[in-house]
């Protein structure tokens, strides 16, 4: 097995990498907070969140604050583990 095996294709995009970075150090983040941090459009962020959710790297929690829908995102155990492996692989590659 080469180190390249641990490079995760799913993290091959700047926005997805950003989402995982934020969720790795925060318990949870909502849609607007991610949007503000990553500086991307609604549609762009939503599609990347979908991809990570499909892989079960993040979990989604929908609630209502008053009448407004509020969506919270968290990194799952698998997500955190895969992200850690990805970072370690990146580090090895540049060394």
């Amino acid at each position: 097995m080469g180190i390249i095996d641990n490079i995760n294709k799913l993290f091959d995009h700047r926005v997805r990498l950003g989402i995982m970075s934020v969720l790795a150090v925060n318990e949870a983040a909502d849609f607007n907070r991610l949007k503000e941090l990553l500086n991307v459009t609604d549609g762009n962020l939503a599609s990347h969140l979908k991809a990570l959710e499909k892989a079960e790297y993040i979990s989604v929690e929908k609630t209502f604050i008053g009448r407004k829908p509020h969506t919270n995102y968290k990194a799952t155990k698998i997500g955190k583990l895969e992200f850690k492996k990805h970072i370690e692989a990146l580090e090895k590659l540049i060394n």
Partner: protein
Amino acid sequence: MTNDNYLKDIGHIKDMMNRSSRFISLSGVSGIFAGCYAIIGGLFTYYYLFPKPHEQLNYGSTKFFEIVLIALLVLVLSIATAIFLTSRKAKKHNAKIWDITTYRLVINFLIPLVTGGIYIILKLNSQHYGLTASLMLIFYGLALVNASKYTIGNIKYLGIAEIILGLICAAFPGYGFWFWMIGFGLFHIIYGSIMFVEEKKASHWES
């Protein structure tokens, strides 16, 4: 992808982690400072203000207020140092000092801490001095554990350590001062040093 792209990826990860949770990055140094203030304040109190064995400390006496004043001074200095170091770091990273992360962290830290503070004052008011150190440690520990949900994991362990120490302290009446010194002085310095070493390791990524 080329090497350069991998490097950019790592830079991006680091930047996102920093911007979304600034508080963790400086807690190391401010922890060491807080521990030092506590030890200096504690020693000063011990040598100059503590009641001699035959004396009694009365609620409302000058000595009592001097001790409370020193405790407040330690608290204010610790918080001021933490705010100063954090905002300096935030400026360096072009981040806002007051955002959702900060707000959540402060509110969740203050709920158990203020509860404990009021409770201790009420107890002092009715001449119950014995458990003050133990209660301070326990409520401070609970505040840290509560706030840890909004920052990176480490602060939780400091909180748990403070709670355990507070409970042990309750079992050994008369040694409250020493437990207080360990909890607020020594533990902060140990925690701060561990965080400082980890921060140094993390900044290794940048270069």
